[in-house]
């Protein structure tokens, strides 16, 4: 019975893969200016728009909620909660989209390298996937419980998220002038018309 389930499962999973394969859109051309622009946009959005400490602090700020609770009625409180939940969901969604865009950029660039390292590529693929799954999990938590009612899960985020910006800026420094030489050098001359 286990064997039957295993082989039928294999066939079913493959058919699902085949379905997505048949439906996939035409990939963009290699090194196209559009891909570079998207990657740059994703990194700068993460650096300046989504991961800065003050923004993350503000989205999950408990002080704001406390203030609204102490000064306003039930309707305003509910509206405030709804808006904050929407904001938190948007934040995670944007992070996920930009990480996804970075993944596409990496796969689009690295496919042209002759000596890909299996272990490195597998590690990167797993890291990208786990980060994207983590974003989905956060989305689910925010959707079901909201950024405040799930404070035992999200709570420390308010204090920790501030550190996101500083370290992220360092980690994404490869598009900064100091670290961009190799980046430009590998992509610049090959930009397709």
């Amino acid at each position, binding site marked *: *019975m286990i064997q039957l389930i295993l082989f039928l499962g294999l066939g079913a999973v493959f058919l699902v893969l085949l379905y997505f394969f048949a439906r996939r859109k035409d990939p963009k051309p290699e090194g196209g200016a559009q891909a570079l622009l998207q990657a740059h946009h994703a990194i700068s959005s993460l650096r300046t728009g989504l991961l800065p400490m003050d923004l993350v602090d503000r989205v999950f700020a408990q002080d704001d909620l406390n203030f609204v609770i102490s000064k306003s009625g039930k309707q305003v409180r509910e509206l405030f909660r709804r808006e904050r939940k929407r904001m938190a969901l948007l934040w995670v969604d944007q992070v996920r989209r930009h990480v996804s865009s970075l993944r596409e950029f990496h796969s689009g660039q690295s496919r042209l390298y002759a000596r890909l390292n299996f272990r490195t590529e597998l590690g990167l693929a797993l890291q990208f996937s786990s980060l994207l799954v983590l974003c989905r999990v956060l989305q689910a938590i925010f959707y079901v419980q909201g950024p405040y009612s799930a404070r035992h899960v999200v709570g420390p985020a308010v204090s920790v998220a501030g550190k996101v910006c500083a370290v*992220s800026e360092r980690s994404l420094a490869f598009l900064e002038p100091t670290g961009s030489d190799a980046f430009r050098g590998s992509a610049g001359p090959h930009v397709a018309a």
Partner: protein
Amino acid sequence: MLTLMVWWGTFVLEAVILLRCYRNRVLQTYPFFATYLAFVLLSSMSEYVVFKTRSGSTYQYWYWSMEFVRVILGYSVVLEVMERGLESYEGPRRLGRNAGLLVFAFIVGLTTMQWVVRWGLPSLRTSVEVERNLRSAELVLLAVVLGVIFYYRVPIGRNLEGIIIGYGLCVATVVADHALRSYLGERFQSTFSVAAGYSYLCSLMIWLVFLWSYQPNPVPVRPNPLSSDYDALAQRVRKALESTRGHVKRAGS
């Protein structure tokens, strides 16, 4: 009657596809696929003749001999898909080849072991299980190729797309068929052979549509960069990812 019509229908379609492949450049580009299809056509015809003129046991022996050759030729189709689909992408092709062959070696090794252990079992059951396992390895190999094409967003031409979809559907059906046959026994054979016939007809129609005219795979416009650039790129992306992940994780903890 309907089953017989499907059978004859597959003969006609196979012949038409081969003719089209001969007339356009598909035959030259995908010789292993064309060989596979030609062998399927000829072997099916010979099976029909043996079925009509010889005893049941002779037919069974003939069928499984042909099936074994079909499996071997099937592997050559999958390898051709990998080589042709990723021919402009040396790195992903090497990755796919290594990963695929590793999985293939594992499953074939496991099957051989199972075969040796079950030496005394009736040959028909063993044949079904061995083919199921070999086809499963083929399916996994094809899935690895698809995974590489997906992950690296490799653009492929319409002909190759058709070969992959049609052949994938065909092999997935065989795996499901043999899994059910080895579990439920031969009484299941008559029920599912009809469904398998329709599924194969479906694959042939896909091939007919996708292989009607020659459409080559898109060729990348960029030369391959040096490997040292790749190391730098991978290192930087990994660093960026690790850091971002750490932050998102902390935000959720």
